[in-house]
């Protein structure tokens, strides 16, 4: 059973529908017991970081997430869920979960492309992801594949070792980050057509171990 964490942060049903389509059983839940018993966890979210982290703390799920992270259970963060796993966010000046070292930054304004074109904020629409580090969850993703983004803030991990994929939008930001059994993406795999479904499927069969890097 896959637990989709419910903390009043947006439409969780689209994640649920995508998993069902792929043939995985899942449950939208906010109960500690069900989350601890689950085999893996999806941590979605839309909206503002400040409110999200407050709601999470109020129902005690911040501790549950930390516990499951320590226990080695595979965790997938989506959109806002990829931001609040970092230490802090510029949005509402929020202290976050700190499962990955780093912070969440707002896109600078004004923002322009390399060719001088004015770029709008939020970054809304389809963009590609360049794989920076091989990861089982991105297995089969091609450089031409695109994913659906909607956000005004972006994850900025403190070290390259946490960067799995990057995306260009006026600047290059980390669109997929990860550490141990946690992987998190700024885009919405559940709304990104076939390549997005592939990532969800990869996550649902992942053992929680990144590829061992040989130095």
């Amino acid at each position, binding site marked *: 059973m896959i637990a989709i964490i419910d903390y009043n942060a*947006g*439409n969780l*049903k*689209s994640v649920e*529908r*995508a998993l*069902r*389509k792929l043939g995985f059983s899942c449950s939208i839940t906010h109960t500690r017991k069900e989350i601890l018993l689950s085999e893996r966890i999806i941590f979605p979210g*839309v*909206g503002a970081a400040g409110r999200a982290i407050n709601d999470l703390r109020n129902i005690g799920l911040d501790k549950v997430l930390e516990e499951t992270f320590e226990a080695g259970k595979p965790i997938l963060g989506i959109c806002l869920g990829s931001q609040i796993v970092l230490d802090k966010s510029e949005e509402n000046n929020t202290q976050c979960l700190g499962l990955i070292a780093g912070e969440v930054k707002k896109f600078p304004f004004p923002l322009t*492309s*390399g*060719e001088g*074109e*004015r*770029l*709008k*904020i*939020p*970054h*809304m*629409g*389809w*963009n590609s992801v360049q794989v920076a580090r091989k990861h089982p969850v991105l297995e089969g993703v091609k450089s*031409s594949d*695109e994913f*659906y983004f*909607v956000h005004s803030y972006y994850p900025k991990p403190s070290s390259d070792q946490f960067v799995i994929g990057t995306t*260009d*939008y006026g600047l290059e930001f980390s669109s997929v980050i990860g550490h141990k059994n946690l992987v998190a993406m700024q885009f919405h795999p*559940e*709304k*990104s*057509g*076939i390549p*997005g*479904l592939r990532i969800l499927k990869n996550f649902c069969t992942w053992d929680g171990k990144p590829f061992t890097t040989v130095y």
Partner: protein
Amino acid sequence: MVNLSPRFISMLSKRIIPCLDVRDGKTTKGIKFRENVDIGDPVDMARFYYEEGADEIVFYDITASSDRRDIMIDVVRRVAEEIFIPFSVGGGIRTVEDMRNVLLAGAEKVSVNTEAVKNPEIISEGARAFGSQCIVLGMDVKKVSPSSRVPSGYEMVIHGGRTYTGIDALVWAKEAESLGAGEICLNSIDTDGTQKGYELKLNSLISENVDIPVIASGGAGSIVHLYDAFTKGKADAALIASIVHYGTYTIREIKEDLHARGVKVRKTWD
């Protein structure tokens, strides 16, 4: 190896969005394929366009009677089980509760048009409840002589174009943005249905003066029209209807052509 790929005008892909008008749970225009298959079911049509590479889908509910709204909610629910790209629903959204029903049924976004002009708070209330990314402002606009009331020469019209409001389209676009609209779907009543091209001046005027994305709507009859909307019209996305419903082009043909012209589109082929 020689790099033959064209120089792209933007890193973010320009979105191609088919629009389906739905009445009492059926699309008003079916797809007429070259093979002469005619589909009038919104769920089947949505799946077809999803598989063809549409970046998003817009449903516009033109069901006259409000007690039949549940039919549309059922359509939204069934579409959400089949397609895994964003889609929006407009038409007949009058309250935050209407928005909630559509979003809970699985739509990514809702659009408000006439109701937002009459009651602008619905934009801010919707944005507060669900986030700006969910709230699309639909604008129906007619070209008029510039006046003190309508200095841009583009006036907001409602009730499908029958009623002039005296509101300047540019002023309204900026106000809606400040109220929390996340995107604008900009429809020109003058070009709508003509297949003679989008209203490019209106489009660039609005797009250059707001920071939220603008979807060009009304008048697509050829791929050049889409190209013009993205370049001269500064649109972030383009709404299409007849050009694909009547089988003039497939979405893939449109995207391949735009790609060859140097417009960055999401390639769903290799």
